[in-house]
């Protein structure tokens, strides 16, 4: 039934995290590019924890014909009333806030990559002996 090889837990988690971080980076890029667009509202993705809770209850594919839902991207959500400073032309993007977010994403991505690297090293050590 289905794929015989299960993803290794930590790699799978790291992959999801990397995917989430790159979607967030895209959202930040959108906000920065539209920083001077009238009536544009800043957006953000929902927190990683929330998406993780959702993917834990993923539907199982019991038939090879089932369409996999695993590759569905994390949707970009409207950030709601959290933003401050709405200018007269209805734009609430704060460049400083977006750049801080971009820095955060970069840092987290670097951490994620390092974890994958070191886990891979440990893994290879146990395989090669």
């Amino acid at each position, binding site marked *: 039934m289905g794929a015989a090889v299960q993803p290794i837990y930590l790699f799978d988690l790291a992959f999801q995290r990397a995917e989430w971080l790159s979607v967030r980076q895209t959202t930040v890029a959108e906000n920065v590019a*539209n920083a001077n667009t009238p009536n544009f509202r800043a957006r953000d993705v929902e927190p990683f924890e929330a998406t993780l809770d959702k993917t834990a209850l993923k539907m199982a594919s019991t038939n090879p014909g089932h369409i996999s839902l695993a590759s569905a991207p994390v949707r970009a959500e409207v950030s709601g009333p959290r933003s401050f400073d709405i200018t007269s032309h209805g734009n609430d993007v704060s460049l400083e806030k977006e750049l801080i977010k971009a820095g955060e994403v970069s840092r987290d991505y670097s951490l994620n990559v390092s974890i994958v690297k070191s886990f891979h090293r440990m893994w290879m050590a146990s395989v090669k002996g």
Partner: protein
Amino acid sequence: MIDPLTASLRVAAAGLEAQSTRMRVVSENLANAQSTGNTPGADPYQRKTITFSSELDRASETSLVKVDRIGRDKAPFKVEYDPDHPAADDSGFVKLPNVNMLIEMADMREANRSYEADLQIVRHSRQMISMTIDLLRNS
């Protein structure tokens, strides 16, 4: 579905393009700050304005930015008394462009700042891509 990191590069590139068009409009306004007409009573250069709008890119499902319209500022012209000027009307007044240096400078600084922010996003995305490639190299 395009890779999100590539999509963010694309979005940032659209932002860079929009901001450089804005810079072009500012420089046109500044360059023509003294451009009067050359027939009696003719209108001088009219200040240009630029507006942006967000546009959904179907391929990457992201909202890019594009130049919506380059319009003309309807503000009244400045008038100066100079009877010898070729554009002077019957009573000797010359119409000068409605370009305000202060506004153009502020606009230029804002365009500059947004351009820098877009560049920073490009830098971050590239860094993330090369980190991922490095995973392959070192193991």
